[in-house]
């Protein structure tokens, strides 16, 4: 239970001897938690005249906001796009297993599927708070079927769709009710896409551009209509070309609405994108980088870690450390930026006062030692257990 009347009487936890990520920097500060939220200790001292009820020594480790994965298709044998009888258990299993990778919130992703699948699956995956049972579900990410045939990647061609005259009704007919939906990836070059983008945006659903052959102009127009995300930058879109950068050009476009930040997902496993390309994107627009796994059901079967021969990128589960960018930058790309993309940055992806106390304890190599949701320990590495 977060906040509410119980909060004032709830125990005050003080995490000491740690470095916390705050304001883009790793600071030597204590982290205070009460009632599932990050607490302002100065306010506690001067207004309530209270001290901590319990102190926990973090052994000098890093405390970062819990990671948020906005593109994950399943894992540990579970495929979110399968219309099984008990979709809920599959989601719950993944939610629980990703805690050990430091993920505290995620968007289960469905790839291009026939309408029957959406109608069956979507209602079974409601938004849900995280806890000891697993990471929180922030809403679904529907990737397709309104995407480009040419850039469908691994999506099944038979189920691709385009918008007819009554575009938004088409979308509703395909997906069913959108209550549990958080992100929709579509190709903006499809006819009638703009009214769809506008309608989805009005409903608070994040529109992402992906699996598309749109040129830069079409992509910019889509952003004007409300699109705010790019699905796995570089993959399933036209390659960057110096006379028409395509969707990739959004990172440095000067023709976007003022003050709007365009976010872009990167699968930083060193395979989907060459690390050099990843670094070009990061240097061009560091504020927009969102690390995603785009994990498939095979994730976690065998060895959960992805280590690569290339020196530049090291991956640990769902965290990628990009050499040449700071630790703080990498951590923000996995937590703050996805939260900002979803408009949740007041409560998620941050250790600011009042935010939900979802955080991870990391060693200096960014290996997850412990995961907390709402200030409660929900996972701990073997070595760390007493």
């Amino acid at each position, binding site marked *: 239970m977060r906040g509410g009347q119980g909060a004032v009487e709830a125990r005050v936890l003080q995490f000491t001897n740690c470095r916390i990520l705050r304001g883009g920097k790793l600071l030597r500060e204590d982290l205070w938690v009460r009632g599932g939220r990050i607490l302002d200790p*100065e306010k506690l*001292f*001067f207004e309530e005249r209270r*001290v901590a009820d319990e102190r926990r020594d973090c052994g000098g480790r890093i405390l970062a906001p819990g990671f948020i994965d906005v593109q994950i298709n399943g894992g540990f044998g579970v495929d979110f796009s399968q219309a099984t009888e008990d979709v809920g258990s599959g989601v719950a299993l993944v939610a629980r297993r990703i805690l050990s990778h430091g993920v505290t919130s995620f968007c289960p992703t469905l790839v291009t599927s026939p309408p029957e699948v959406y109608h069956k699956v979507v209602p079974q995956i409601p938004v849900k708070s995280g806890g000891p049972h697993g990471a929180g579900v922030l809403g679904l990410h529907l990737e397709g079927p309104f995407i480009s045939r040419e850039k469908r990647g691994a999506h099944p061609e038979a189920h691709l769709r385009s918008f007819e005259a009554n575009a938004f009704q088409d979308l509703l007919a395909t997906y069913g009710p959108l209550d549990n939906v958080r992100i929709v990836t579509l190709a903006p070059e499809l006819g009638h896409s703009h009214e769809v983008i506008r309608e989805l945006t009005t409903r608070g659903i994040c529109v992402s551009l992906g699996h598309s052959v749109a040129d830069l102009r079409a992509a910019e127009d889509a952003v004007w209509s409300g699109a705010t995300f790019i699905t796995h930058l570089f993959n399933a879109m036209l390659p960057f070309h110096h006379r028409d950068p395509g969707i990739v050009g959004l990172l440095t476009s000067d023709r976007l609405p003022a003050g709007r930040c365009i976010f872009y997902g990167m699968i930083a496993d060193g395979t989907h994108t060459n690390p050099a390309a990843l670094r070009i994107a990061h240097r061009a627009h560091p504020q927009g980088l969102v690390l995603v796994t785009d994990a498939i059901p095979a994730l976690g079967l065998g060895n959960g870690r992805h280590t690569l021969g290339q020196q530049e990128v090291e991956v640990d589960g769902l965290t990628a450390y990009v050499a040449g960018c700071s630790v703080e930058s990498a951590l923000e790309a996995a937590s703050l930026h996805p939260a900002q993309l979803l408009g949740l940055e007041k409560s998620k992806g941050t250790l600011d006062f009042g935010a939900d106390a979802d955080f991870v304890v990391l060693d200096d190599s960014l290996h997850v030692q412990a995961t907390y949701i709402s200030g409660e320990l929900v996972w701990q590495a073997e070595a760390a257990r007493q």
Partner: protein
Amino acid sequence: MRLVILDNYDLASEWAAKYICNRIIQFKPGQDRYFTLGLPTGSTPLGCYKKLIEYHKNGHLSFKYVKTFNMDEYVGLPRNHPESYHSYMWNNFFKHIDIDPNNAHILDGNAADLQAECDAFEKKIKEAGGIDLFVGGIGPDGHIAFNEPGSSLVSRTRLKTLAMDTILANAKYFDGDLSKVPTMALTVGVGTVMDARELPAAFFPLNSTPFITLMVMILITGAHKAFALYKAIEEGVNHMWTVSAFQQHPRTIFVCDEDATLELRVKTVKYFKGLMHVHNKLVDPLFSMKDGN
């Protein structure tokens, strides 16, 4: 007065911290017997606070039975503003030690009735039995707390309008923008800090004391404070240089670095430097609460 001169800022800060540490431990504070400390803000005492925190973190010094009274606070600045004295004390001292929040007293510059707030503060000091050790600094204009030139030497805690010198000196904390600097503050009076009446026979009274300040320690470092130090100790008691009032307090220590002595007579400096072996007995040996104190 004792004039304790150390070579540099760090040594002066350390000497002052050791002095505070020893006085607290020697007092043997406990459940029915709190040590009361008056505290300053500003850049001068930062080094001293750091050392005190170090002694605490190493287990030598606990503030569990210490009560603190800060000298002043700006009026109208939100309590959580980064430049408020509440923020200063939290970030530079309180959050690192084990003081009971109920015993850390700072004037509330946002109180509905400012004079009532000041009167209540005086009352709290009285109820605490007076201040055992008041630590203070000195402004470039010779002020103690916000008792600007012209303040009565028998003044009590009250609202003061800040002098232009002070506002200019503070501007650096407010992005150099004069319009952002608070113009008023609540401050203990010169009389509040001085408050020495009849001295008790025992140096450390065990039961309720008359309302007196037992010891005053003024920290002064840096060449920019040298003229104020000269005015404070080599000229007469004068309400234009309010720190000079402490010439009339029975137990005042001025702790300074070489630079702060630049405007003093060579004779004064030589005399007090010659007494360092006596002064150092106050800080050496450095006591520790680990020694079963």
